[in-house]
């Protein structure tokens, strides 16, 4: 009885969670220009129209560049921080780690304006690079969360065994630690890529005149006739995210299984 009540509630909740995403393909394949019910007919013309918009192409190119660069940089920083926090005790540890993890809860607009003020103050011109600076800042806490669990499940005697058998610290990292945390690294790359690709505020403030995908999408919302194309674009993005996240989840679980740990939950 009780369980059924919970289950019913859970399903209602999932419907609430998925409501917007279910609507997305409906309007993407609807042939009307107005985003409203009732649907008028099936069409793929909004998908075709995407090909004719050069700004969109530029935005996609920019966003991919930003996302790939941010993912790599934040994962590298994440490896340093996760390794330091899981393996060593050092002075001011709580303070330093707290600062690095702060963007996890700090409103993005605060990150955006504070960076804007400093960059303009230093005379740094706004560009894709300045967006990357901001994105690395907000992606790093997520990479640390993922990588920490990867490093945590690593038995320290594995490293010691490798030193003991004649390896140097560097070759031990390459031969033992890196292969064992590789699933975590891949999952961290994918997650930070996804976050950066979807990030709007920082790009909005720091991209200067360059469009990124979310900035482009936001600008298109002002033109009702442009919205169906955005729905089509959104459908593709949703599919892409689901694929990337599934891969990330697969690697995360494989990493845990490989090092003999117990699965305790999702991405956070």
């Amino acid at each position, binding site marked *: 009885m009780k369980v059924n009540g*919970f289950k019913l*509630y*859970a399903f209602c909740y999932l419907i609430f*969670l*998925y*409501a*917007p995403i279910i*609507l*997305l393909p409906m309007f993407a394949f609807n042939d009307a220009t*107005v*985003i*409203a*019910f*009732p649907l008028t007919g099936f069409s793929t013309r909004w998908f075709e129209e995407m090909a004719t918009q050069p700004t969109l192409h530029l935005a996609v190119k920019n966003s991919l560049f930003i996302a790939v660069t941010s993912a790599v940089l934040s994962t*590298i920083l994440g490896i*340093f*921080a996760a*390794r*330091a*926090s899981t*393996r*060593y*005790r*050092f002075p001011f540890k709580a303070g*330093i780690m707290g*600062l*690095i993890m*702060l963007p996890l*809860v*700090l*409103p*993005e*607009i*605060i*990150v955006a*304006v*504070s*960076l804007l*003020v*400093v960059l303009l*103050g230093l005379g740094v011109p706004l560009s894709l690079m300045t967006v990357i*600076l901001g994105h*690395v800042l907000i992606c*790093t806490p997520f990479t640390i969360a993922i990588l920490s669990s990867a490093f945590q499940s690593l038995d320290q005697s594995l490293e010691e065994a490798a030193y003991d058998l004649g390896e140097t610290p560097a070759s031990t990292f390459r031969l033992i630690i890196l292969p064992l945390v590789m699933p975590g690294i891949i999952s961290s790359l994918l997650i930070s890529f*996804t976050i950066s690709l*979807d990030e709007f*505020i920082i790009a909005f*403030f720091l991209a200067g005149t360059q469009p990124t995908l979310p900035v482009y999408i*936001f600008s298109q*919302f002002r033109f009702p006739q442009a*919205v169906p194309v*955005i729905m089509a674009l*959104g459908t593709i*993005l*949703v599919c892409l*995210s689901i694929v990337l996240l599934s891969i990330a989840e697969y690697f995360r679980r494989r990493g845990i299984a490989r090092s003999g740990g117990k*699965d*305790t*939950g999702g991405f*956070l």
Partner: protein
Amino acid sequence: MSEGSFWARIRRTEGGSGLLLVAPPGLYAILLLAAPLGTILLYSFLTDGYLEIIRDFTLMNYSEAWTNELYRSVMVRSLAVSMAVTAITVLLAFPIAYFVSFHVEPSKKSLWLFLITIPFWTSYLIRVFLWKVILGYNGVVNSGLLGIGIIDEPLTFILYNVNSVVITLAHAYAPFAILPIFVALEKIDRSLLEAGQDLGESRFMTFLRVTLPLAMPGVVASILIVFIPTIGDYVTPQLVGGPEGRMIANLIQLQYLRLDNYPMGSAIAVSGMMLVVLTIFFGWAQARLFGAAFRWFNGTMPWVAAVAMAFLSIAANFGGVLLIASLLPGAVAGVLLILSWHIALLVMLKRGGGMA
């Protein structure tokens, strides 16, 4: 030899090697996060000139931010929206976290978590926009209700106001609220619950006296992780809020990008953050207070009274903070008043507990 002594030295000073390792991300965060945040704080005390910022120390920005009717109402609204979103999100999320942790087979838990987190990772902008579609004049809700015949004309109070902002944000932050609670529930040793029932408590009382207190750290984490970012959300109020749904972030954006008034924007940003810190502090004090009260009455107070007191306490706190926020010019006096009230109660309860 050199490699040997280097390694030996590294091994000997664990703190040194840890600092060395954490230096790249640490320096990055100091240079690109701590320093900019400090700059904002500094800017908030400077004066806006026409084309440049005048380096005169002033409190004018703050006095403007706290007395200007427009700014004040936006801040109060942001706080109210954020608290409402937090309350709704956490209350709705708890049963889900409980369901997944306690009623889902272990092998299927990951799948459920995956299902819950997927919507969170899909384009935020488009999700928010679709809520506009759902709640709009010709939207899903209205056409649905019209179709069934429950209403005669479309509802207008669900879009372009605070309601739509709350609904959309509650949707956006749902996974954020579920995960910390879920993690806390997962950590609970199941035999504790059996022990609770074995010692004669009903399932419900076991939940109240064992599960809920042990899940509290997760609840607190989810409150924080929802409350802090929502108060600074820009996209949702911009897209579905309408003129009466604007929040702090919109104001900050306006100051920075439209009016080019960096000191004013900084002062508003800092005020917003202060509001967050203040609210959290009051919430914390209230929780301590409630905890002390609960321990004091433990055993002698029926659970209905305890729960009622919890709600009263939370409501009083939210009310108190809202009151302060709406009377911002007199904020200092208000803060001191509420603070001293809290301290007095704490001291009293502590003594009461000691005597009991």
